[in-house]
């Protein structure tokens, strides 16, 4: 999983690890449908995944916008405050690249739900449909990891604002604070998939609330 360019305590990393693990587990669980598991539980897992991805996207946008200086005069595009190789690429292209990536993932998610809705009859998972669901989760995982690597690559270019936003778990706290249930659901969901130091981190954030 990505993470070498950013400190461990970034909520994007924690969410990304959870999203990746969740997809891997759900894909593997397709082998158990009809034996120890129902297709409905797979569908619930994917709905949870989509909810967590939505939170990831919101946080990714906040991280990204913090990397740029916005001008009062709107005819001037936002720009990087410090010297960076990204200076040669304008804000609009970069922003569009991120938006394009996230909307592609949403489309892939919808395609997966379409397969579930239209192809799964009476909860029976035939091999052909299982193949398509596996292809769906494989594409989703690939698209998501591409997106995560892109956002981490871009925001890590500006170490100054990046560090500011990660003192005292600032970005994690903001994600939790912005949720109507104070992050209870998303923290609980992440805890199902995190291990080791990542789990300790999220536990610490939870205790500090």
């Amino acid at each position, binding site marked *: 999983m990505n993470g070498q360019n950013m400190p461990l305590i970034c909520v994007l990393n924690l969410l990304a690890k959870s999203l990746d693990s969740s997809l891997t587990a759900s894909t593997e669980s397709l082998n158990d449908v009809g034996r120890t598991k129902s297709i409905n539980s797979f569908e619930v897992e994917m709905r949870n995944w989509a909810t967590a991805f939505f939170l990831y996207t919101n946080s990714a946008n906040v991280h990204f916008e913090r990397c740029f200086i916005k001008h009062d005069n709107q005819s001037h595009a936002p720009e990087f405050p410090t010297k960076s190789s990204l200076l*040669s*690429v304008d804000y*609009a292209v970069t922003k569009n690249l991120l938006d394009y990536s996230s909307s592609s993932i949403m489309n892939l998610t919808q395609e997966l739900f379409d397969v579930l809705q239209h192809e799964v009859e009476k909860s029976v998972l035939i*091999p052909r449909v299982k193949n398509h669901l596996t292809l769906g989760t494989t*594409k989703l995982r690939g698209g998501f990891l591409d997106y995560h*690597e892109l956002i981490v690559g871009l925001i890590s270019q500006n170490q100054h604002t990046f560090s500011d936003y990660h003192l005292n778990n600032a970005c994690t706290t903001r994600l939790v604070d912005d949720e109507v249930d104070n992050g209870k659901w998303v923290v609980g969901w992440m805890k199902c998939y995190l291990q080791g130091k990542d789990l300790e981190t999220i536990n610490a954030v939870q205790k500090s609330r």
Partner: protein
Amino acid sequence: MPLFSDEIRVLESPIDVMYLMHKAFMIHSERTEALADKAQDGGDITNLKNALDAWIAQLLYHAKIEDAHMTGPLKDTLFQDGRMPLRDNVEEHDELRLQGSALMDQFQQGGKSALRKQVASVILDMEDKDHAELMGKVEEVETVIGQAIGEKKVLARTRRHLYESVVSFKVTEFDHFENEEAFVLPLVKDQMSDSEELECVRKLLFDDESVEPRWIIDFVAGELEGNERALLNELEKQIQNQSK
């Protein structure tokens, strides 16, 4: 007849060799998929390249012979749902050729093509910009984004995309085999005599234009075991008898 994914105990008609061939192809495809999955963790990909080459070579030959000697001479039929088995079969072959070719390009070009494609798509989607000017910057944007992501991640992304394409190719192949068995093989049995079927099967299993005509039957036999391989051997004897 059972599906190719079941155990095949008997060939009721020579064209039923398709069940054995489809089964052998799918076994190879699944092994290739596993190699592509493992390649995502890094390491040498020579075995994956060899497996992909064999997979695509077999499928291309198979589709070519089917179009010319199996579905080609048959008369199509129209189902109530609009399906026309022979027309659809040819279209599915075209899709397999397209995906196979794209897969090989992807393998040869590496990660640059995927990232460049993504950047180019984004730029074309931007409404308020001069596309011509921006398209000229695709390479520059790709380089900068590549640097931001890091070389190691670009390689990981390449392997990941390759794995996705392999999975997608396998799913298309699986669907095609199921469709062919359900809708095309009954037409073959209805419209061809046993002797015509056997000649079609001979062309499917032996490449008359190759210096090694057995490269298909040997591949199929190599993937099968026990009773299924014995069924193939028996069919080969029938082909030899007919050729005498």
